[in-house]
């Protein structure tokens, strides 16, 4: 009776011509050579190095966020291709195809939910990845350029999500995209309602918004454009940048974790690959669970004649929409997001602090980390305000208040500097006053070249503000809430806009100092303007109607 010799069969299969044609290398015997060959001999796996330092493998270092973002990208590509089999980007058909997916296609509802929730998870994962990389200082030399590529990838992730938002062609999609694209119409010079738009002869039918929409309002052309961008153009671009991103990670020794003397490297197969696999599978289980238990929203079919109230942008742009309360669209929708993107890309070039590369180090990089986290907290706070606290007519509704109750109209607003209307002070005064304040905010921290006691400065400002508030309240001009707001915004801007830069970056060279301060002062400007609007109903600090520029 012949015995079943497994090893012999294995040997024969592996040595056969077919196996050899597909997989190189001999029988797996788990030697270091085998493991390295497994990585370097595989076109997909060889984006990894063959060996990696153990510090790079720690869960608490990376949280696997980059890999998870990529896993979500793959999941989205897969589910997206399957959805494309059923979807036609034409207004009459798009909505019906979504209904078909929901009601008639096998697994159609699951597929759509999966795609939708994975897209939202990817936005979260990519932002979290960026925060992690910042906190561990992994953007510093020699990784500056890869950080910039990463910022572009974040932007493209948001753009992918935004273009996909329109495709169901329901009211939610239509009006969210209307809100989003109207901001493009406010671009300075290039948008029909932006400042200086007259210089280039911009109208509603030839400006930047028109290019995005393929028309003067969201319509059939927009749907086709967004579909092509969503399914072909942007994914291709993301793919190209991803290759670059991964290649750089690989070339820059895979991890920024600092070297230790006599550190023994470990094999990537299986030490890294198993971690990646487990993180990805856990995530896919989570997304699938989510897709089974919660359906993606679908409202009534898009109708340009029926405006929804309130009309909200997708949640990741809700912060920008919330900023529209305080700023004109050219600032909130164009300048601020561009400043965020450019500012983030500039970070590795203005941060000269050599410490804190490859580990969490708040104490060694107090300025960088505080300022970055302030930005992140502001971004998410604005987002939360837009998503959770805004109701019909974009009025403020607490989460426990019903949207079905009436809210009285908000109090009238006024402008500080400007030529006409409710303005109090003339424009000729506004330019030097605001310019002077801006210059002072920009330069003072560097000009005072000695150690100040930050707590005393803060205390002084708060005391002065409180005195002003007390006088105002005594005269019946301010309410307690207004004084509270005033103290909060004065304290915030003093600490983050003056004390911190004066303490930490006054010794930077002028070029880096000015770029950094421009970002800091812009952030403080947003805070101050929010305070001005919330406390004193100031619509514009300065308005120049002739070039439609309002601040």
């Amino acid at each position, binding site marked *: 009776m012949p015995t079943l010799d497994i090893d012999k069969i294995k040997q024969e299969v592996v040595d056969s011509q077919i196996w050899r044609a597909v997989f190189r290398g001999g029988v797996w015997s788990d030697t270091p050579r085998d493991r390295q060959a497994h990585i370097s001999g595989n076109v997909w796996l060889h984006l990894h190095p063959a060996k990696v330092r153990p510090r790079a493998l720690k869960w608490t270092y990376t949280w696997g966020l980059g890999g998870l973002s990529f896993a979500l990208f793959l999941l989205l590509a897969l589910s997206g291709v399957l959805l494309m089999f059923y979807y036609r980007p034409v207004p009459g058909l798009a909505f019906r195809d979504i*209904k078909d997916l929901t*009601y008639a296609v096998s697994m159609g509802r699951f597929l759509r939910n999966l795609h939708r929730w994975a897209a939202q998870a990817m936005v979260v994962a990519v932002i979290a990845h960026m925060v992690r990389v910042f906190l561990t200082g992994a953007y510093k030399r020699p990784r500056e350029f890869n950080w910039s590529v990463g910022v572009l990838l974040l932007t493209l992730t948001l753009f992918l999500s935004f273009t996909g938002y329109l495709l169901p062609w329901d009211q939610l999609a239509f009006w969210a995209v209307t809100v989003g694209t109207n901001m493009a119409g406010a671009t300075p010079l290039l948008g029909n309602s932006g400042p200086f738009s007259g210089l280039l002869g911009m109208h509603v039918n030839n400006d930047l918004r028109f290019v995005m929409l393929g028309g003067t309002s969201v319509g059939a052309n927009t749907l086709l454009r967004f579909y092509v961008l969503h399914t072909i153009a942007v994914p291709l671009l993301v793919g190209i940048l991803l290759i670059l991103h991964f290649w750089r990670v690989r070339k820059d020794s895979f991890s920024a974790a600092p070297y230790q003397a006599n550190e023994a490297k470990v094999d990537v197969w299986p030490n890294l690959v198993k971690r990646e696999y487990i993180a990805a599978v856990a995530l896919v289980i989570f997304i699938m669970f989510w897709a089974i238990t919660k359906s993606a929203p679908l409202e009534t079919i898009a109708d340009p004649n*029926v405006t*929804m109230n309130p009309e909200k942008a997708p949640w990741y742009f809700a912060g920008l929409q919330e900023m529209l309360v305080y700023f004109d669209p050219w600032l909130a929708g164009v300048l601020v997001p561009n400043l965020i993107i450019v500012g983030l890309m500039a970070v590795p070039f203005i941060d000269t602090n050599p410490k804190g590369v490859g580990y969490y180090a708040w104490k060694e990089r107090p300025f960088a980390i505080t300022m970055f986290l302030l930005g992140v907290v502001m971004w998410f706070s604005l987002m939360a305000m837009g998503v959770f606290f805004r109701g019909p007519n974009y009025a403020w509704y607490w989460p426990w208040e019903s949207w079905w109750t009436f809210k*009285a*109209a908000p109090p009238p607003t006024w402008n500080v500097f400007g030529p006409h209307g409710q303005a109090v002070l003339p424009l000729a005064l506004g330019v030097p006053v605001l310019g002077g304040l801006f210059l002072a905010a920009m330069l003072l921290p560097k000009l005072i070249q000695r150690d100040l006691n930050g707590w005393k400065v803060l205390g002084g400002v708060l005391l002065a503000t409180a005195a002003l508030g007390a006088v105002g309240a005594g005269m019946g001009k301010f309410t307690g809430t207004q004084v509270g707001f005033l103290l909060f915004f004065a304290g915030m801007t003093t600490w983050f806009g003056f004390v911190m830069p004066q303490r930490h970056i006054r010794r930077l060279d002028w070029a880096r100092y000015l770029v950094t301060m421009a970002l800091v002062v812009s952030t403080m400007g947003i805070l101050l303007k929010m305070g001005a609007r919330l406390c004193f109903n100031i619509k514009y600090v300065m308005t120049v109607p002739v070039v439609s520029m309002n601040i």
Partner: protein
Amino acid sequence: MSYRKLFYVLNFLLLGVFVWAVVKDNDAEWKTYQRTYYEKMATYLDAQAGQQKDPAQAAKLRAQADEYRRHPLAIKQIITDGLGRYDRCITCHVGMDEYENPGMTTPFKTQPYAGHPDIAGLVKAHPFEKFGCTVCHEGQGLATTVADAHGWVTNWDRPMLTGVHIQGSCVKCHGDFRTLKGAEAAAKGYDLFHQHGCLGCHSIDGVGGTISVDLGDIADKPIPRIAPYNFLRVTIDGKHLEEKDWKIQNWILGHLVDDPEYVTPNDPFAEDNAEPIAPSPMPDFSKELTRDQADDIVAYLMGMTKVEEDEIPYRYHVAAPPEKEPRFASAKAHGKYVFEKYGCAGCHGVDAVAGRRRFNALGPGQKDYDPKMTKAELFAEMEKGREPTLPDLMSGYDHDELVAKIEQGVPPTAAKKWDPNGPLPVVYMPAWKGKISKKELDDLATWLLSTAKQQNLGF
């Protein structure tokens, strides 16, 4: 847990979640109904076979029953090329699938297993392959779950028409619906609409008063245009509506069985706005109309759709012969008809017996305005404002004066407010010059003067 264990656990979990997704997708609501239908048919045929004397016939019935038991489940739909609709209703209502069940009658009484009523008349005239389901019944034809398909859910503006409201669908195509068999409720609704003077304020396709909205496309009114605040106040049969029932038919019904002043209170004391705004000036018809009559009017108005009229090709429409003006023996009878024709009853009451409410105008029995009154007291007095009760006034006019008054109307700004700080009364007497022919005007004046109460002479 070691990575190896985690690897196995997670892989099995992944498989489990995937299987769950497949099972959940496979466990569709419609399958239960389709399967039950086939089982009920099989049981019914077996019972028939048991009573059958002829063994050959019995075997045949049993074979049919077995076929039903083995029947594969599938989504069924009627694709109507002409209407561009895809109706999946017969997925559950299998008995109404012509191919499955050519007779389209079933032995079952309850839905979704019952057949369609009036096969010989209604269904023969509207073959399903040409009409589908939703063009008459409304609802969401593409959906395959009970709630979504019947459309009584949020995010679907045209839910299934229930009760007599479905006769609105006759009105969509049948210009002759007033004489159409089966559309009696809609026809009655049309008559009530005119008798009670709705046309005085609401025009239909441009014919009628301009005081309120045109109702020629009222069935298309998008639900987001109606404030939730108002929908919350609609009360039908003593019950407030659930959010899923915030639909246009309930909005219209709510205005007929409930006081519109309560549904749309607006802001008479300028609490949320710079100027006071009077509540809805629509009269309270809840005392005048029975619940059935209100439903009849809703049935008629649910046919007032432009969206669907445009979607339905012209060959589906049935034109009505032009209506002739009726002839009358006397000028008085004609005058009464004219009063009805132009919707005068909307303000002056049916047969001109009593003027209707006119918020914050002067009216009988009002106390004198006193700024110290509470809001509730002020509101109660403002509510007593009335349109003129015509028989009380007629003794003050001769024929020519009355004709001139009707021709000129009374502009809204001429209204006298009871509360000088309150809202301007909304409704007013339009100028009818050029809108009513001379003969009609003369006869209207003749009839009105004949209603005068003589005892008021001298005031």
